[in-house]
């Protein structure tokens, strides 16, 4: 299912995200307006969204959003799903006719792993493994998202058209993240659009990572297969490895991705210095070098992070219990004329909002 020519994906982009820290849900129109206001940062070759809290009645099930090139791929993939999962419910992903061209077959399945297939691994590990199998082994099938009570919606096109195509105004979510893409070297392919989603994580990204080569090899050591050759995929796996599998606190994982300079570490108080030094020493291969701003959506929260010297734009704002992050201030002002607070997060310092806890890190 490799639709990419000439190696690694390179693109510039717009990102945007909205979280309500009290878990109140809003529909998809706001995020569409926010990302559409940064139209010039995309070139129509990819747009996408992730939404959290949209499937409350199936929140115990993994919601698989899948795309198929043709009915043969669908048949094979459904066979595979059937073998490994109990499918609670399935159906087409609702869309409408718009300017979006040649959509693949888009289906969603609410599933749980078959007990007998788990073989001692956790459900999450099992799901990741099976998702990777589908993506790499079943020609013409691709998993767009696989988390619980969340989904990713993406396509080739400008983000506002993608949102319209997927009828996002009909969904209500506590967290929305969005992406408009400006690739420089890849033909449009639906799977290559952002967000990249894995289990409950979904990630949108603007930038180009020069450490990609080693980040990828590092992840391979832990069994990840980076088949898409995109920075976003690598970022998602890094979060998965450090936060879900290694159980590092999210802000510590961010320190591994965008660590302070040694000079700063040398000046820190003894205890902090030791922690930071150890993180850099042990997680050196996780350092994400080069320009990036990312927004990560996860169960109950949202995180935004810049590279360690802030080579890509990122703005954050709050209004009452809403946290908004965006590539440009315009992406925020479009949906919120008068934020309570608006600021530019520091390089390498995460902005983290958690449902029930508010904005816990301001960056």
């Amino acid at each position: 299912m490799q639709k990419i020519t000439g190696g690694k994906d390179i693109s510039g982009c717009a990102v945007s995200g909205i979280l309500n820290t009290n878990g109140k849900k809003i529909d998809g129109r706001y995020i569409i307006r926010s990302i559409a206001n940064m139209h010039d940062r995309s070139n129509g070759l990819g747009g996408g969204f992730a939404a959290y809290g949209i499937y409350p009645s199936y929140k115990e099930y993994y919601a698989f959003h899948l795309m198929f090139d043709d009915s043969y791929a669908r048949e094979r993939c459904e066979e595979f799903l059937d073998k490994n999962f109990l499918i609670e419910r399935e159906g087409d992903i609702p869309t409408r006719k718009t300017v979006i061209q040649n959509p693949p077959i888009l289906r969603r399945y609410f599933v749980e792993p078959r007990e007998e297939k788990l073989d001692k691994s956790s459900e999450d590990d099992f799901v990741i493994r099976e998702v990777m199998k589908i993506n790499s082994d079943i020609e013409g099938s691709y998993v767009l998202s696989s988390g619980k009570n969340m989904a990713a919606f993406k396509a080739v096109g400008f983000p506002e058209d993608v949102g319209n195509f997927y009828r996002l105004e009909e969904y209500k979510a506590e967290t929305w993240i969005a992406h408009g893409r400006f690739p420089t070297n890849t033909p449009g392919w639906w799977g290559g659009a952002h967000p990249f989603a894995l289990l409950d994580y979904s990630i949108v990204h603007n930038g180009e990572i020069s450490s990609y080569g080693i980040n990828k090899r590092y992840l391979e050591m832990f069994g990840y297969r980076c088949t898409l050759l995109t920075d976003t995929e690598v970022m998602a796996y890094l979060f998965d490895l450090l936060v879900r599998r290694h159980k590092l606190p999210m802000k510590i994982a961010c320190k591994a991705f965008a660590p302070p300079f040694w000079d700063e570490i040398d000046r820190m108080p003894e205890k902090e210095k030791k922690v930071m030094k150890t993180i850099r020493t042990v997680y050196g291969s996780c350092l994400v070098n080069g320009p990036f701003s990312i927004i990560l959506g996860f169960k109950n929260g949202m995180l935004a992070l810049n590279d360690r010297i802030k080579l890509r734009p990122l703005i954050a704002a709050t209004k009452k219990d809403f946290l908004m992050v965006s590539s440009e201030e315009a992406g925020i002002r479009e949906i919120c004329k008068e934020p309570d607070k608006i600021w530019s997060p520091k390089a390498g310092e995460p902005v983290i909002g958690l449902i029930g806890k508010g904005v816990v890190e301001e960056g």
Partner: protein
Amino acid sequence: MLSLCKGEFSVERDDDRCIRCLVCVRQCPSDVHKYDEEEDRIYSDESECVGCQRCATLCPTDAITIRYKPMEMKENANWKTYHLTNIYKQAETGGILLTGMGNDKPYPIYWDHILLNASQVTNPSIDPLREPMELRTYLGRKPDLLDIEDGDELILKTEISPQLKLELPVLFSAMSYGSISLNAVKSLERAATIAGTYYNTGEGGLHKDLHKYGKNTIVQCASGRFGVSPDYLNAGAAVEIKIGQGAKPGIGGHLPGEKVLEEISETRMIVEGTDALSPAPHHDIYSIEDLRQLIFALKETIAYEKPVGVKIAAVHNSAAISSGMARAGADFIALDGVRGGTGAAPLVTRDNVGIPIELALASIDQRLREEGIRNNASLIIAGGIRSSSDIIKAIALGADAVYIGTAALVALGCHLCQKCYTGKCAWGIATQDPYLTKRLNPEIGTRRLVNLLNAWSNEMKELIGGMGINAIESLRGNRLQLRGVGLTDTEYKILGILPAGE
């Protein structure tokens, strides 16, 4: 017996320039130049000249040119002058031919087939003069994951193994006191201290004057166990077990008795004037389990406070061996390639045994990753690193740091005459002769080495900044930053890099 070998060099003296100052006469350790008072003229016995260029460098009027002038035989693609002269020598002496320095045969040098990447448009390059650019490197075993508790303050629950902190990913290779002069050792020690890196004692023990400066010393424990004592092991910042050396895989060291003078005998704990012969293998290591025992015996001795590494020569199955070493408790693996230097080695071994470091490095790094044990041990490579770009390429292929030996000696003045084994080094490096050792002023030596490291640091920063990288760890193992030219498919596969254009 008439020797059929003629000298290899011609000594040309421009008599219009020569002022009869006799500097050349005094400086040549091989007594090539002789002053004839009667004729007020200098005669040169060219057959003894080794081409060290000492006279030509010090002649105040630039009157001397030393030219390489091997015997010119009838052209023969099979029988080169190299083979003929070797046979003549052996027919005359009946002995094994010795040599110094690294393999000089034209085996492929992969560094010269690898090109580096740079950022354009989509990703900004970073200017090291304006932005911080980090080369700091920690060597040692690293856990796969950290246990950190979040709360009011962060609590680090994982204690990590001892690490060596390097301000740049370059260390000075093992060169023993004995094979090189005390002044050379002192230069290396001081330069390592100033630059924030390490030098390695080699298998010669640690001179008593240097015990107190152990902070930047890696002490070696080789098969001869020369000078090894608990004091010695504890004096350094790390211990390295030497199994093999790139210039002579499979054989031990040899320091001729003539070089074993008082201070060397004291440092090595052997009788003055006796040959210091280290056995080919460690006689307590015949298998990987034995190695494990020695590693842990040493770790016990130093109370697990410092890393213990193992050095091997790059040979055919070094990937498998490295995997064994990483599992046997080695905190770092030093890997010496076929072009690695030596103070003395049999010519036939040096020129024919081992494999290129680039291929060994690529396959070991890949193997350790496939086995998921790359974090178990750091990888230091050695053997023919000539420039900062070689270092950058090595790190991108997967090395944590590099050892430099020959390059450091060249910075000290070595002219690669390859006569180290004779003990008559004209530059005061590979000698113990008091007339000659004085020629290396350790203050100058230190400065020259520090300058070299600074120059290379700056160049490395330029190169990684150009790739849009500002910390060396993002280059380590990042083979996407490399492209090859003129290699075969198999070589691309082993090196794990793409051809230029792809």
